[in-house]
């Protein structure tokens, strides 16, 4: 049997949400078999953070959770950044689990000194930018467990992951959250949900849903294998994008009734023409609430 890839999971400024999300991976028994976790913040691995800080373990994959703060955040007696940087230099691949590690995320919103590993929001100026070439970003707040499983498995199989401009895997983030949303037909015909707590209607026009311009596969690779925020009735809040979270998240920003942000890659005129036409028709099947 080939040597199991050694994974070290270190944290910066975080809420632990990515660790907990990862623990939901349905493939956990297989993951523990195929990968050797040198350290994980939630479960025992045989090593303590203190021993990780004292020694120099040889690792294959460094998983970073949380934003990076150069100074003022000690863990096990060492600046957490120092520890992360040490293992960043040893690791063959660095996987940023979640928006904070990828872009700074909400941790950066609270403390402007916090950055992501390769990026600081949209700018490629994260504290570990010099290691960019081996960084893979898996933003999300939190990360979807299967996104991380994908990155781990691609590594184990020696596969190269195609990345977008923000170093996100195209296979996972080459789509929008809108794709696969069960409310798509309502989007097409411009029929808003007109309130929360309903199965029917789109959340893009009035309720702030960012699905049409947010990169992610939440509606293709479902959460818990069963649902997603938009399916359940909650607008997408754009948690895979640099700069997350924006503000006024449950209301669509409009300029003279026109959404301020267009669906990804759709020119404004094309959008206005299409929606103008869609709006002209009254599709009774969709307009009339079934429930």
């Amino acid at each position, binding site marked *: 049997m080939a040597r199991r890839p050694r994974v070290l999971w270190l944290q910066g400024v975080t809420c632990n*949400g990515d660790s907990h999300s990862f623990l*939901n991976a349905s493939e956990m028994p297989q993951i523990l078999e195929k990968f050797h976790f040198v350290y994980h913040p939630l479960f025992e691995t045989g090593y303590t953070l*203190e021993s990780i800080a004292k020694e120099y373990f040889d690792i294959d994959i460094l998983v970073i959770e949380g934003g990076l703060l150069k100074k003022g955040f000690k863990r096990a007696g060492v600046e957490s950044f120092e520890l992360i940087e040490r293992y960043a230099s040893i690791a063959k691949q660095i996987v940023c689990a979640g928006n904070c590690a990828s872009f700074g995320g909400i941790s950066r919103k609270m403390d402007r000194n916090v950055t992501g590993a390769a990026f600081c929001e949209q700018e490629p100026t994260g504290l570990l930018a010099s290691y960019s070439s081996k960084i893979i970003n898996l933003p999300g707040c939190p990360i979807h467990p299967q996104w991380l499983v994908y990155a781990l498995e691609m590594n184990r199989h020696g596969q190269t992951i195609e990345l977008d401009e923000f170093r996100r895997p195209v296979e996972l983030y080459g789509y929008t959250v809108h794709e696969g949303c069960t409310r798509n037909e309502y989007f097409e015909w411009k029929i808003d949900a007109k309130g*929360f707590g309903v199965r029917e209607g789109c959340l893009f026009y009035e309720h702030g849903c960012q699905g049409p311009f947010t990169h992610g596969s939440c509606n293709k690779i479902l959460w*818990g294998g069963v649902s997603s*925020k938009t399916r359940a009735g909650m607008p997408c809040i754009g948690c895979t994008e640099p700069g997350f979270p924006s503000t006024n998240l449950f209301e669509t920003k409009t300029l003279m009734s026109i959404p301020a942000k267009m669906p990804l890659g759709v020119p404004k005129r094309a959008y206005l023409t299409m929606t103008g036409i869609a709006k002209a028709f009254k599709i009774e099947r969709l307009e009339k609430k079934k429930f």
Partner: protein
Amino acid sequence: MKIERFIERIEGEATLLFDKNRDGSIRFVEIFFPHIRGMEKFLERKPALDALAIAPRVCGICGHAHLVSAAKALESCYENAGIELNISAKAEAIRSLTLSLEIIQNHFKWFYLTLLPATEGFETKKDKSVLTAHHAASLCSRAIAHLAGQWPHTSYALPGGVMCDPTHVEMLQTESLLAQIDEVFKNSILQLDPKDACKIAKVETLFEKNGDFPDLLRYFRKKGWERVGQSHDRFIVLANHPIGGAGKAIKTRLAPIDILSAKEDEAIAPEGFINHAKPVRYNRRFYEAGPLARAMVAKSYLIRQMHRRYKDASLSRITARVMEIAKLLEYCKKTLDSIDLSEPSYVPPPVSLKEIESTRGQGYVEAARGSLLHGVHLYRGKITRYCITTPTQWNLANGTPEYPGVAQKAMIGLPNEKVAEMVFKSFDICSVCTTQ
């Protein structure tokens, strides 16, 4: 002699500074959380509803409790402005259901990933523990996802109700998941149907059962640890919850509470140490929050019996938490059954918060680790002040040697730091919540 000890895997970390007697026993101990993220400040100037998305991100394991607290705090903003909201029984039940599921997954994780590894000498299979915690937690998350879209970090509750509109199929799927969680419970922690577990009336019966929890009980007895971890014997429960009501208890004497008497102080630390955990007290006295407090205030027959023998020792604390799993599972099944899907999920508030000049509100829930309180001030729909008080702030508050906090008191006098760490972890600590 002073010894620093770094404590890991408590949803982050903390540092304990032990002051030890010559025989190695603990004379005094101080607890430090050296980092703060700044959630409360970040919420200022935000539109009120943004709290629903931001507040859950205080914590990766109890974010849902933060969501419900935030939603309730905003609802109380309406109430305090004289505007009545109509929350359907269905919405209340769904919120309570998902919150309970979050508590259940927490308790499993705490037992297998935090407590057992901290119990020195207790034999466990490492991978089996991880997988049991994983299995229970992922089933809970999936059940929450049916209603709330995902876990962690959903924002599906809002003033007026919930955003979901489940069908009978999703209800049945949730029920099926609850049955699977029952199985995990039965195959691991306590080899009984949760329904039968709830009927256990004698402490001795628990000791005689099979499962990882009775094994641990017997181990505690073997080590003579039944009474370790006793503290002030004062309990507080700020919110009504599935198993009982709000209130406080000094030993077994119950009294009602006035939420205004719960006060947060500034965090203190000796020179050279940084601490960001603000202590919380009730009428200037330290109280324990969490499952033991809930069971004591709810006058749980079994836990009171345990308390009669061992007072508020770690063993009582652990038992209360494990037995809460069974009770919550039963509650979830009953609640699921009671939901009338024809009721509205969401009744829009009559006005937007923007239309209210100035108001304030408080929202509190019982989270996995105890009482969680969110306080908010609004001006024309914008947050001007946000204050979060977490359960760990009750339990881990630092006091003085003369007047120690709850966890401090529980550790003082213990024979060594190893046992102290176990007692410390019996509180189920959340570092990230404390340093939000």
